[in-house]
């Protein structure tokens, strides 16, 4: 008996202490933690949280310690015929343990209410950056109404400027959440919700949908890149440009031929056509670029794109194919006829770090895998398997990756 | 008042209860409390959605106050018949009891008739269950009320049949009283609906 009790008495405070240690020590190992706030909003609510933690811990220690003491002190002693006195109550004690928690709660409630009104104060400040967020099953659209920028799954914000969000949804309820920068705010049909925060430290932050929204709810991530003001301006500059254009409507070769030599038919014609509109591409040296050029070892050879396994794609052919296929029904590429609203804006998809809402790094291999069969990679994905042939995929990938 | 404790007949629920209140009447009041929450949820839904329809017909275009006033009056009157019916059976006056009970039933049927007329009239005018939010919330709220009236009518008819077969006596007043409670409750729900849905359109 006593042995058991002692092991029990060791267990509880240990769990509590271990918990605290881990709580403080591990914060920096978690890229998506709420415990390392990087905006004034996140700091405010973290402050309230830590406040509740300390009071909670105090209550916890008192109750559990009292419990352990009583268990030890008043355990039945062997052989004792003790007849405990029948006490039925004690009014002053009852009042005491009614009032004490009430006081503690008041200490929690006051900063809580203050923080509620501070964090929900929607008075505009000069220099607010407005962002409209639209949740979709299962990706995020970001619009900067004042900057005329539309993008998906990758939110760029300048450090030090307050970002004010209008939160909406195209289908079901989702929840907009960047743990290090702010708490959650749901996006709800027929409602426009709001949240704001000022990012304080440049860097990349991950966010994730936090309301069950169907099959691939777990795969509805996004990232926030907090830039220096200059980088942000450059980014905006680039995003406002229309997409890289490929004039010549190169017909994609029939499958049989293309298998033999997909790369040969296209490059000569498209190279000249594309050159003026794609200045960013020019520095790439014509011969095999070093493997470091893109993370997964893709190399740009002229305008064609070759990657693992020697797959070669022609961006101009891809551009033409894109315009001819179902893609345009769902995707927008500014400067082209593609004006679809169902899927992410692809105007600058090549400049993004990940595809399909954080699912995969944006490498040619991964884009190819995606185009091959989206729902296989992301169950339920609303982009169907379009039964593209490998060489079509190669061209499309080359095109999409060129859309920096 | 002496409690019957005799084991020979001591199944607690057939004897006096600890509050002295009849089990069925007690449970019925609890049931009515529960029904308050039921109708409160429906009425809240109706009110919350008031003015939120994205297309017509809208309430003002379609609700017919004079007609509904008459059916409201009819339901109020049936409540009066109901109390007189109860008073009759408590006195043991079975003939009067049957008369007033029939009045209640007829009153209920008239109310249902009005509702059928109203619903079909609305559908005619293009307001259906699925037409807009007003249609959905209106039909579901008044429909649930109408269902309650219909259940009440069936219940009262059962009592009438029992009494015509000679199975109702003064001792069965409690059966009538409980049916009456239900009937009056349906009436007060209508009092609220009439004001909230029709007059405060």
């Amino acid at each position, binding site marked *: 008996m006593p042995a058991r009790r002692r092991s029990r008495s060791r267990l509880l405070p240990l769990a509590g202490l271990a918990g605290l240690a881990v709580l403080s020590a591990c914060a920096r190992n978690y890229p998506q933690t709420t415990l390392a706030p990087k905006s004034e909003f996140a700091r405010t609510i973290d402050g309230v949280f830590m406040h509740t933690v300390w009071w909670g811990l105090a209550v916890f220690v008192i109750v559990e310690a009292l419990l352990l003491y009583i268990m030890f002190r008043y355990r039945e002693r062997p052989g004792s015929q003790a007849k405990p*006195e029948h006490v039925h109550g004690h009014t002053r004690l009852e009042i005491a343990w009614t009032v004490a928690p009430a006081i503690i709660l008041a200490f929690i409630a006051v900063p809580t209410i203050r923080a509620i009104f501070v964090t929900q104060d929607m008075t505009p400040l000069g220099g607010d950056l407005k962002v409209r967020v639209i949740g979709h099953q299962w990706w995020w659209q970001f619009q900067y109404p004042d900057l005329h920028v539309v993008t998906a799954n990758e939110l760029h914000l300048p450090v030090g400027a307050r970002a004010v969000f209008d939160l909406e949804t195209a289908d079901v309820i989702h929840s907009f959440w960047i743990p290090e920068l702010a708490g959650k705010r*749901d996006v709800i049909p027929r409602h426009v919700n709001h949240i704001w925060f000022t990012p304080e430290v440049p860097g990349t932050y991950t966010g994730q949908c*936090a309301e069950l929204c169907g099959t691939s709810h*777990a795969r509805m991530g996004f990232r926030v890149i907090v830039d220096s003001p200059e980088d942000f301006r450059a980014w905006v500059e680039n995003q406002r440009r229309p997409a890289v254009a490929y004039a010549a409507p190169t017909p994609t070769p029939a499958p049989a031929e293309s298998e033999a030599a997909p790369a040969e038919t296209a490059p000569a014609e498209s190279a000249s056509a594309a050159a003026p509109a794609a200045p960013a591409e020019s520095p790439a040296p014509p011969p095999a670029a070093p493997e470091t050029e893109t993370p997964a070892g893709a190399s740009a050879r002229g305008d064609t794109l070759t990657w693992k396994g020697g797959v070669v794609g022609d961006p101009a052919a891809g551009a033409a194919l894109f315009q001819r296929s179902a893609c345009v029904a769902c995707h927008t590429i500014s400067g082209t006829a593609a004006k679809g609203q169902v899927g992410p804006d692809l105007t600058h998809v090549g400049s993004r770090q990940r595809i399909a809402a954080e699912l995969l790094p944006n490498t040619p291999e991964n884009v190819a895998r995606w185009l091959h069969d989206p729902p296989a990679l992301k169950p339920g994905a609303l982009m169907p398997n379009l039964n593209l042939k490998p060489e079509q995929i190669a061209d499309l990938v080359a095109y999409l990756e060129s859309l920096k | 008042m002496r409690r019957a404790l005799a084991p020979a007949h001591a199944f607690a629920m057939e004897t006096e209860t600890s509050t002295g209140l009849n089990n069925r009447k007690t449970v019925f009041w609890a049931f009515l409390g529960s029904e308050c929450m039921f109708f409160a949820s429906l009425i809240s839904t109706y009110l*919350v959605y008031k003015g939120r329809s994205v297309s017509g017909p809208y309430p003002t275009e379609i609700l017919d106050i004079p007609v509904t006033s008459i059916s409201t009056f009819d339901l109020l009157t049936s409540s009066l018949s109901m109390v007189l019916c109860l008073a009759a059976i408590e006195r043991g006056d079975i003939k009067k009891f049957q008369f007033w009970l029939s009045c209640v039933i007829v009153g209920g049927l008239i109310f249902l008739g009005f509702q059928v007329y109203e619903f079909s009239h609305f559908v005619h005018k293009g307001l259906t269950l699925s037409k807009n939010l007003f249609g959905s919330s209106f039909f579901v709220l008044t429909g649930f009320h109408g269902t309650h009236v219909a259940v009440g009518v069936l219940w009262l008819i059962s009592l009438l049949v029992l009494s015509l077969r000679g199975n109702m006596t003064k001792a069965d007043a409690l059966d009538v009283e409980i049916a009456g409670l239900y009937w009056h409750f349906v009436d007060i729900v209508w009092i609220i609906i009439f004001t909230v849905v029709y007059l405060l359109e």
Partner: protein
Amino acid sequence: MTTITETLPAAHEPLYRGGVWSWITTVDHKRIGVLYGVTAFLFFLVGGLEALLMRIQLGSPENTFLDPVTYNELFTMHGTTMIFLAIMPLGAAAFNFMVPLQIGARDVAFPRLNAFSYWVFLFGALFLNASFLVKALGSANAVPDAGWFGYANLTSRQYSPGHGIDFWLFGLQILGIASLAAGFNFLVTILNLRAPGMSLMRMPVFTWMTMVVSTLIVLAFPVITVALFLLMFDRFFGTNFYIPAHGGDPILWQHLFWIFGHPEVYILILPAMGIVSEVIPTFSRKPLFGYAVVVYSGILIGVLGYGVWAHHMFSTGMGPIADAVFSVTTMLIAIPTGVKIFNWLATMWGGSIRFTTAMCFAIGFIAMFTMGGISGIMHSSPPADLQQTDTYFVVAHLHYVLFGGSILGLFAGFYYWWPKVTGRLLSERLGKLHFWTTMIAFNLTFFPQHFLGLNGMPRRIYTYSADLNFGFWNLVSTIGALMLGASVLIFMVNAILSLRRGAIAGDNPWDAATLEWSTSSPPPHYNFAVIPRVTSRLPLWDRHHPERMVDRPEDELKVVVAGKTLARTEVPDDDGESGTHHVPHMPNPSKYPVIAALGLTIAPIGVMLKPEHGIPVFLAVTLTGVLIMAYGIYSWALEPLEDH
């Protein structure tokens, strides 16, 4: 003083003998209690198995053990099963078996309605789980997968085609009827069937909490009934309640659901609190400290529970005023809850504590529920909750209160009342093993989830990227869950061994004070040969330890609400008959409750057939169900309750 008359010696027909038919038609509250208990425990195993599958999937990042569709189905069914098919009916089992015994009654107020509740519950549970069968037969989207609170508009036909949501909504609707029927029954039973002298303020606290829970059921379930009706109309009859395109607002669902849902969580915890309030005094050998305060705080928890629902919606943007109001009302509930905790501690203080398994679980309840309550307080601060909501921090909170609270409390009740129900003792050695493995495994499973939540792991995700570093604590949690499964197996072994060769318990193995221990174990089917007369809160202690008696008999039986006397009756004269030992008449078995329940379950199947098979099939099946139900109810109304 010795006003409690001994029951007949055990020369009555055994309580549990009889064929299947006798169980199907039984109206005996004890047998129905056993049916509830066994059924609910089986569903606890099902829900636990679902949890284990989820935990295996989450054990490592990017795991492919389950696909996302199955995973969504599993947590939806896990939550729904645990709440509606395990904890609520386990509570109902305890109400059924114990409340009539505790108040000195021979049965509940409406024995056949009681049987009806059980059968409706069983059929509703089978109905809900039939969805797995339909899936196995090859139907897509057949299993509910929108979470246990099924937020609109994900549940609309557009976003949830197939019958998954239909199984869920009709399943809950059927289960709701079972709960409502039981709620009415127990409310009236406790008000009206108390033995002479058993004034309200002499009732055992478990009975009190049953009464509060019954009231909560009666007032909370109509709201979800309406919410589900609206959803049904949307899905089958083209209404627009939750369809944004036509002006509907999905937030309405959230409000209606949580107006029900928060009282529901107190429906889940108060029975456990009642049990703990019985176990602790018994094994401390002291009366409950502050009885009246414990009772009133239980009532207060129930009342306040209606004013806090929107604390589940802090991230929906209700605005600062609503956030602040609901935050404060939520925090207020900590006060009456704390009062209970402190009164239990004060009960143990100065006692002579026997660490039986039941007592260990009761103490475990205090320790673990306090932790869950504190994380609840952290949620109740909206700014803090913006980070916690929909993360594993909530999952941790809800398991600390539901497992650490309700389940540990129910286990305490299991160990405490098992001898009364079966007549045999459980092994204390296995019991202690069960207790310690449960405590360790439980904390291993759920404590790390606090860290996971705070470090950014959302709930309801079937997998997570390795970059996020969630792997380690998830693995710990998974190991804990598997251990928890093992601990449940220990419990089952203990129960089976006890049934086979457990020591005979006797009437009152724990020297407890309340009336259920005055009759034999198991009790005769009429409970008490002579209805006891009660003169205090602790009748058996007064009898066995008269020297310590404190309570004084009162002159009147009063129904007091908020300090006002609502009704009164006189204390009966001592009547000369109480010595006679006739076997009392008890209600007859009846087959009509099960028939009515069957009809009730058939009706919604017709509605579900409407989309594919059209209106005639819908009407045919539904009307068949309604007619069967009507036949059942009419026949039951006309069938006499007992012979003369």
